[in-house]
């Protein structure tokens, strides 16, 4: 990552100052600061590390945390995959991918197993991740206790004291009311037996993939200015009770395009009479399963 500067506007007279952006957009000092936060996050799995989140050229809440994390770890030899809702071609995924192609000159891919960095919003790919891969989650609300306690000063204290009674009471109340835990995404997890962590709004279906994952998992919350991490092969246990253990959501039907079972499905409305079809949310997985190309270690 050299200091080669990049000019986005060339039509200005030579006398005026030129608008110049650093390669990879973020300046090197900032990248270093973010890497320090990442290292701290890896050292204390599940702990939310405050960092001086920078503005990036997309709106807050649109993946600015993920973008900063990716910008700080991406190098010329990396292959980047960006997904939103499991799909490579959703507009915001396209926009972020184009941003890195423009400012970091990075190569991109849609193939999960080829990517060295996968930036994601709301999903973990169906294809199991391998050692050496890094998955970067875009996080809107990093604080798992936020909707139980709105104050940051208070939630930081609760984490420090490992005082998670609030969360268990909330889950218990669900069971009392509905007979089971009624949380289907952003389902809280306990990392390495210590910190309760928000897995970002991935469906509970994806939660088991985080447990003992060989890939490095990094989480960036730009607007909320927090970074956290789960190192490879770390325990990520979804919260539950002995008599009401965690149960990930699942679908009882296969994808109607590729026929895969045990995958997360999107419900696509096909007419105005209640007709719908269910198809893979992971577009890369679906495309390659239906075309018969290899997707190693496909789930059963």
């Amino acid at each position, binding site marked *: 990552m050299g200091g080669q500067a990049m000019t986005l506007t060339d039509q200005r007279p030579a006398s005026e100052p030129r608008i110049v952006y650093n390669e990879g957009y973020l300046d090197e000092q900032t990248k270093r600061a973010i890497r320090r936060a990442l290292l701290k996050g890896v050292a204390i799995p599940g702990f939310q590390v405050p960092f001086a989140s920078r503005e990036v050229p997309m709106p807050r809440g649109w993946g600015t945390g993920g973008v900063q994390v990716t910008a700080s770890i991406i190098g010329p030899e990396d292959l980047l995959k960006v997904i939103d*809702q499991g799909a490579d071609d959703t507009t915001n995924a396209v926009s972020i991918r184009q941003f890195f192609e423009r400012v970091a000159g990075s190569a991109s891919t849609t193939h999960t197993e080829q990517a060295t960095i996968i930036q994601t919003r709301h999903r973990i790919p169906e294809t199991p991740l391998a050692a050496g891969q890094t998955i970067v989650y875009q996080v809107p609300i990093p604080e798992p206790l936020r909707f139980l306690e709105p104050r940051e000063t208070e939630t930081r204290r609760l984490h420090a004291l490992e005082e998670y009674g609030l969360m268990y009471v909330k889950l218990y109340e669900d069971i009392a009311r509905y007979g089971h835990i009624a949380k289907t995404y952003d389902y809280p997890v306990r990392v390495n037996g210590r910190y309760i962590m928000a897995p970002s709004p991935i469906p509970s279906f994806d939660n088991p993939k985080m447990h003992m994952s060989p890939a490095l998992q990094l989480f960036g919350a730009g607007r909320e200015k927090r970074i956290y991490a789960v190192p490879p092969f770390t325990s990520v246990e979804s919260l539950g009770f002995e008599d009401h253990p965690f149960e990930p959501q699942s679908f009882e039907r296969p994808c109607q395009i590729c026929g895969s079972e045990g995958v997360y499905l999107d419900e696509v409305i096909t007419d105005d009479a209640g007709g719908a079809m269910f198809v893979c*949310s992971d577009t890369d997985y679906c495309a390659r399963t239906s075309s018969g190309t290899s997707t190693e270690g496909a789930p059963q």
Partner: protein
Amino acid sequence: MYVAVKGGEKAIENAHALLAKRGSGQERVTAQQISEQMGVLVSRVMNEGSLYDPELAAKALLQAQGDVLEAITLLRSYRTTLPRFGVTAALDTGALPPERRISATFKDIPGGQQLGATFDYTHRLLAEELHTPEVPAAQGEAAEAMPRVTDLLGRSALVEPDHPQDWADPEPGDLTREPATFPMSRAERLQALARGDEGFLLSLGYSTQRGFGNTHPFAGEVRIGEIEVLFEAPEIGHEVPIGRIEVTECQMVNQFVGSAEKPPQFTRGYGLSFGRAERKAMSMALVDRALRAAEFGERAVSPAQDEEFVISHCDNVQATGFVEHLKLPHYVDFQAELVLLRQLGAEFGQSTDGRASNDPD
């Protein structure tokens, strides 16, 4: 028939073209015209974009087709890439030759009241055409020094001093470089307020006037003028001027009933903004004073007195981003909720069916 949501790339490209077309118009307005004729707007973008650069702010406004928050975002995401050389010397606003200076607390003050360029006493009648009347040349002697009203009060200890006696003038924090944690120092809070949304601060300040954390404010002084910025570069060893900026300063003077440790005394709320931004500076001063509740042992019961609430929500770049992100696809979590809702519905149906069949009727 299932139509895959493909073609995100093409869609984005077309959307950009359409957007550019909507903003092109018959004739391009120049950035210079914007900064000369819409100076107040440019000030707002510079304030909330936290970058003093009228030219870039005007360009941003043009690029954003007049969407102020979009322009602020543009400026912020450019600003964040700029290197930070250090902290300038504190501005001496007492020495600033004001173009406008008013006090609501004293009828006459050293240096006099000066209305300057203000909308205050204009009749808000729509004009068919805009005129620029002659500005008469200044009469009388050259402008005399205009000491700050709060300094006049301070001399007789009627108002709390600018800073505590043991003040060592530490380098102020910088929220854009250091992670912010609560509680904040007043300097950090003021920085957040200076970057904060004018409308949000206005409403919060207004709420204090209506009794939600009343601080009994008086506009001690509002002044606007151009001031020299001094910077001490380590390699030079003394302060050197690096340019001039236009600022608006507001010092609110607020009642304080006194406590066990402190005598009754006027207290202050402070507001400072770039350019002509009086409403912003005044709102900021009101909120600054309200946020000092703990310092004076006041009960904090209103939103404007709640540091976490005010500071976490005053940044409009964050606020608009997160509100507008609801436009992004949420298929996955919505699907998860759908599945749950169907399950709950089925369970509810079973239980009410059971109840119905048990019913003897």
